[in-house]
């Protein structure tokens, strides 16, 4: 069955630093992959998605993600983090009519 793993439960960065959040997938064919963000007290919002084609995907809020088949990864990156990026980030993959979410990575941003 399709699944995603987020190895980092909690990451702390300084404002202005670069960020990379890891996501590894388990999927038989070329997967569809998603990153969602959940701000405190809010529902999830789609940041970006990969379906096919260019392996570097641009999303909202200055985020990007790179699909690497050789590493079964779809890591989320941002060159310079803002305090407002503090949130929970979820990687996801569709599986039989539903979206399967990873366990999430909580991002904390220090001034």
């Amino acid at each position, binding site marked *: 069955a399709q699944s995603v793993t987020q190895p980092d439960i909690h990451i702390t960065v300084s404002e202005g630093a670069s960020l990379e959040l890891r996501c590894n997938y388990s999927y038989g064919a070329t997967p569809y992959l998603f990153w969602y963000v959940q701000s405190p007290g809010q529902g*999830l919002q*789609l940041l970006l998605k990969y379906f096919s084609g260019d392996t570097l995907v641009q999303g909202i809020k200055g985020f990007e993600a790179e699909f690497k088949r050789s590493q079964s990864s779809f890591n989320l990156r941002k060159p310079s983090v803002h305090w407002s990026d503090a949130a929970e980030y979820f990687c996801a993959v*569709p599986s*039989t009519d*539903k979206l399967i979410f990873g366990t999430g990575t909580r991002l904390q941003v220090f001034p």
Partner: protein
Amino acid sequence: DTAVSQTPKYLVTQMGNDKSIKCEQNLGHDTMYWYKQDSKKFLKIMFSYNNKELIINETVPNRFSPKSPDKAHLNLHINSLELGDSAVYFCASSPGPTGEKLFFGSGTQLSVL
């Protein structure tokens, strides 16, 4: 002009009570979902409906009963609430039944005392 709205935002109740959470989407989507998020932020799908028909029913106690009066609404009724039901419940919708590109409501925090 909220796309997916659910009410109430907070729900505090005693064990054994029955409660409902309502969800409405104005996106014209065909598919709606209920997800449960536990205290560790783990998200698990409970139900999905496509055009008012149930298509996913995960391993959820039958105390939980979804109802979809039309494709813009998916309500969740919970009977005989238990302590373990405490969680945040999210409604979501998507254009089709493949589970891609979900739009989420802001959640209902349920606390069972």
